[in-house]
């Protein structure tokens, strides 16, 4: 056997420049663990892209009925405005549903593959593992957003008038205001292994009350108040204004403030629950069970 490299008494694992370390780990989690594994399931890739495209045309057909002058809705006689409404809703709601679903799913698949123990055994902190794990899902949603907006603009006549600063801030806050709940959902799967009531509930609740497919003003007054508890509602309101009407930061300030409040409350809550769950599974000895 060829002589292996000699071993010093202290660990020699690289103490890298922190920025380089973050970039390297982002690459490893996103392109190696995320993209390379995802892309190796060709049928899944095909069905995912189909899942981005089909709803756009489905709601386009539905728009014909909803915007009929006799329908009595806010969009009656104005099909263009409804098409723009749902195209933006579809393009951005994926960030939220994927945060709720994929992060939890990721924890679950690491449990199933037996790699979770090795992830948590490394000096990379559990919180950082969680953060890096989100990047690929978000990247995929940027791609989905591009495809959906492209179809909207290219084929369905959606006209964009973008206020970039307001759009970027709204987009970032749309993600961060839902992040805490996503961490909560993934902590739940770490604990319960199968079945994630939080993710299922949040996804349904968000789609119904988040103003994705129809404005919350369409809801009966007795339940419309619930929509104000859904941060996506504020996120989509701000994104639509900044993307379709060129409204600047001042015009969407109220939505931004609400999303900031959600961010400030739910992220510490989610992280605290994640820490508690991680401790719990290490006491119970169920970290690697599935």
């Amino acid at each position, binding site marked *: *056997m*060829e*002589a*292996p*490299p*000699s*071993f*010093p*008494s*202290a*660990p*020699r*694992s*690289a*103490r*890298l420049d922190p920025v380089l*370390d973050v970039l*390297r*780990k982002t690459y*490893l989690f996103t392109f*190696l*663990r995320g993209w*390379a*594994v995802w892309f*190796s*399931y060709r049928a899944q890739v095909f069905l995912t892209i189909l899942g981005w495209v089909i709803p756009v045309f489905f709601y386009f057909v539905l728009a014909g009925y909803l915007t009929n002058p006799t329908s009595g809705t806010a969009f009656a006689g104005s099909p263009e405005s409804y098409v723009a409404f749902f195209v933006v809703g579809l393009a951005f709601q994926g960030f939220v549903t994927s945060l709720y679903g994929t992060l939890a799913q990721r924890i679950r698949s690491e449990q199933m*593959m*037996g*790699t979770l*123990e*090795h*992830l*948590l*055994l*490394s*000096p*990379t*902190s559990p919180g950082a593992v969680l953060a890096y794990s989100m990047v690929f899902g978000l990247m995929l949603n940027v791609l989905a957003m591009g495809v959906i907006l492209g179809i909207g603009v290219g084929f369905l006549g959606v006209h964009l008038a973008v206020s970039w600063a307001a759009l970027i801030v709204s987009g970032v806050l749309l993600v961060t205001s839902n992040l805490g709940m996503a961490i909560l959902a993934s902590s739940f799967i770490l604990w319960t292994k199968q079945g994630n009531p939080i993710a299922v509930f949040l996804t349904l609740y968000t789609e119904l009350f988040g103003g994705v497919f129809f404005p919350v003003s369409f809801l009966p007054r007795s339940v419309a108040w619930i929509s104000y508890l859904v941060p996506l509602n504020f996120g989509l309101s701000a994104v639509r204004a900044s993307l379709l009407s060129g409204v600047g930061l001042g015009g969407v300030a109220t939505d931004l403030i609400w999303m900031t409040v959600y961010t400030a409350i739910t992220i510490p809550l989610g992280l605290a629950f994640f820490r508690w769950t991680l*401790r719990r599974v*290490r*006491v*119970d*000895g169920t*970290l*690697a069970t599935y």
Partner: protein
Amino acid sequence: MPVAIEISDLTKTFPSAWTLPWQPRRPSTTALDHVTLEVREGEIYGLIGPNGAGKTTLLKVLSTLLLPTSGMARVLGHDVVREERAARSSIALVTNSERSFYYRLDGWQNLRYFAGLYGLGRRELERRARPFLRSLGLERVMHRDYRTYSTGMQRKLAFVRAFVLETPVLLLDEPTSSLDPASALEIRRTISEVCRERHQTVLLSANNLLDVERLADRVGMMSSGHLIPITEGGGAGPEFGMARWLFDDPPERVEALLGSWLRRQGRPDVARWEIQGRAEGTRVRLWTSDPEVHLPLILAEVLRGGLHPQRLDLRGVDLEEEFLRNLPAAQDVSPEAT
């Protein structure tokens, strides 16, 4: 020599599983029961024991994947509960499961991913990994998907992942399980050469007693959560032994002289002894870390006491015999009790 792994009074009890009110309550399970152990830097400590005895639990507590119920464990001075991140940085773990890599990634991608979590870049990884990949015969399959690997290749890759990290402490759980004899030999040779050369501390759990016989400096047996020292002392290699003596004297007399003298001495280098009356005389069995040094001292005492030794037979510890002997009464581990 400084201590690398320090375990004191460590207990791990798995709480009872949650049940509905009408279901019978499941009892909690104590996997580690007041375990105390010190492993010195550069030492290879072998853990044997039946399935479910607590070997893997001990490795998982040390690697911070499990929280102990009470007691203390330190790796290179870092408490595994209070300073878990520092402790983790010093450890590489090889589990006995093949499910520890991504099946859709190839060998290199898997290595790059896991080594990257430790801050290891691609070039440095390749430099460290190549000698191992070559000697373990993995070099030609590194661009193949992990899912196409045989069990032996999967186990070997897990070793390479642990070796390239160059951590001062290695925890090995069943290193040669499900390997053919040639691969097992190769793994044992690699562990022996690399860890000795690097002065790496190894805690090795094995059902394959050959692994422990060939590699360990000292051996302990886990049984029902207790750690029973099989060989104590230590040195540069596995040089513990057992002495069998036959005396003409009755067992009570041998016990009164030799047994009480050993007890009084409280010799840490004599792990334990047994005195049995047999047809051919009284048989004394002594387990000691360095028979050549300790037996002359004991012999002098035997002769001074007027005992009549007939025959002395010296041999290495038979781990299989030890394993079976310790199975029924694991709790009874003190020299006085034996």
